[in-house]
């Protein structure tokens, strides 16, 4: 990893989407053990995926990982915390008026 350069990596991945009454969730798992670090960007290639209601779909896709440069990674580690309030749920969006 360069101090200022970004590297691009491709990784096979499995996308699982559950669109069931009992569970609405979606996860992407890298099948080659690729690990995501702060500041990295990930894009799953291909068309949008959506499971019909009541079903779980699992699709093997290719993901592009744009690795953050050393500097970006450091910056994300230092500043990411400022956004931590996002983890709190308040029932409503932040829009003042709808």
């Amino acid at each position: 990893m360069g101090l200022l350069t970004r590297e691009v990596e491709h990784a096979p991945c499995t996308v699982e989407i559950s669109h069931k009454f009992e569970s609405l969730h979606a996860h992407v798992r890298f099948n080659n053990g690729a690990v995501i670090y702060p500041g990295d960007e990930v894009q799953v290639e291909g068309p949008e995926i959506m499971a019909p209601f009541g079903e779980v779909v699992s699709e093997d896709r290719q993901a592009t990982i744009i690795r953050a440069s050393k500097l970006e990674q450091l910056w994300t580690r230092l500043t990411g915390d400022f956004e931590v309030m996002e983890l709190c749920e308040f029932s409503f969006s932040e829009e003042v008026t709808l």
Partner: protein
Amino acid sequence: MNAPLKHTADATTVEEGLAIAEAQDKQYTSEMATETAMANTLLTPRFYTTDFDELDAIDVSSVREDWDVLIAQMEADPNKGHFKKNEDWDHVDWENMEPELKKEFIDFLISSCTAEFSGCVLYKEMKRRGNNKDITQLFQLMARDEARHAGFINDALREAGLRVNLGFLTQKKKYTYFRPKFIYYATYLSEKIGYARYITIFRHLEAHPEHRFHPIFKWFEEWCNDEFSHGEAFALLMKTDPKLTSGINVYWIKFFLTAVYATMYVRDHQRPAFHKALGVDPDWYAHEVFTKTSKMTEQIYPITLDIEHPRWQRNLEKLQKANVDMVDAKGLKKLGAQIRAGWAFVNLYTIPAKKHAVPASVRLEPAY
């Protein structure tokens, strides 16, 4: 949407509900094909990483007894059968719902669904990247609950004719980073305040059922018990390391308490139609929720905010007003509003906190 299809609310069993929903789905798909306007709700969760080695290093042996009881309770999953529609899920008259209320209520459903969904993504990631069995087990259980809640809210959204769109999966997403301790402070409070918010509304509607404009509120009691146990788990995690709740970290705790309470106050006051329909005065509600949350957080935090202090309510109101002014204003006026908001927050943060001794044992049971 106007064909004489049975409504999922009319279903008496889950199976029937699902069958109706499927039939609706087919209808909606064809409607979409003919380009009938169908609102599409893009969920936009964020993606995070944290210090997974630090998570792996957590040793729960100092709270083992309480930990095992809590995990066993979560594994037994007493709420498993709860998130099902039964005869209590009565008909919702979306067509005749007052437009302002409808907008605010849908905002409530979408925001709640996104929050549950994001919680699920975060917890699942922590489960997958960790190697410490205690920790991965906990996060797996919490991810399960969040996905279940998201599914339940999604169903209410579907009834309103809204479809969630998971298009974000194939969009480029950047992973940000939070330190584990900030995740604990933020999510602990979020779960506990969530419990207080839901139970306060639930009890209020028990006393005033005429204000229950949607059946989802009937599910708030068990729902908030999940929030409660998640909060308990984070309290135990914090208990494993006394440094997390002492020294300089007390200032962080105070920051999170102030920020969470203030944000809640501001957001609730931006949804007047929702609160009016529930018959709830947002100022009364805020005070109730803060009181309950403060009482609960005494289990682990050595301070609570002095919400009876004269500066408290005054500055919450100033913050709320500045926040509204910020939207329409431009240039210097906007800057002025930002400064007023910042100053109000400083005034809230600097109110002397109430100090107290933390009990040796953390565990609480839902009491409200």
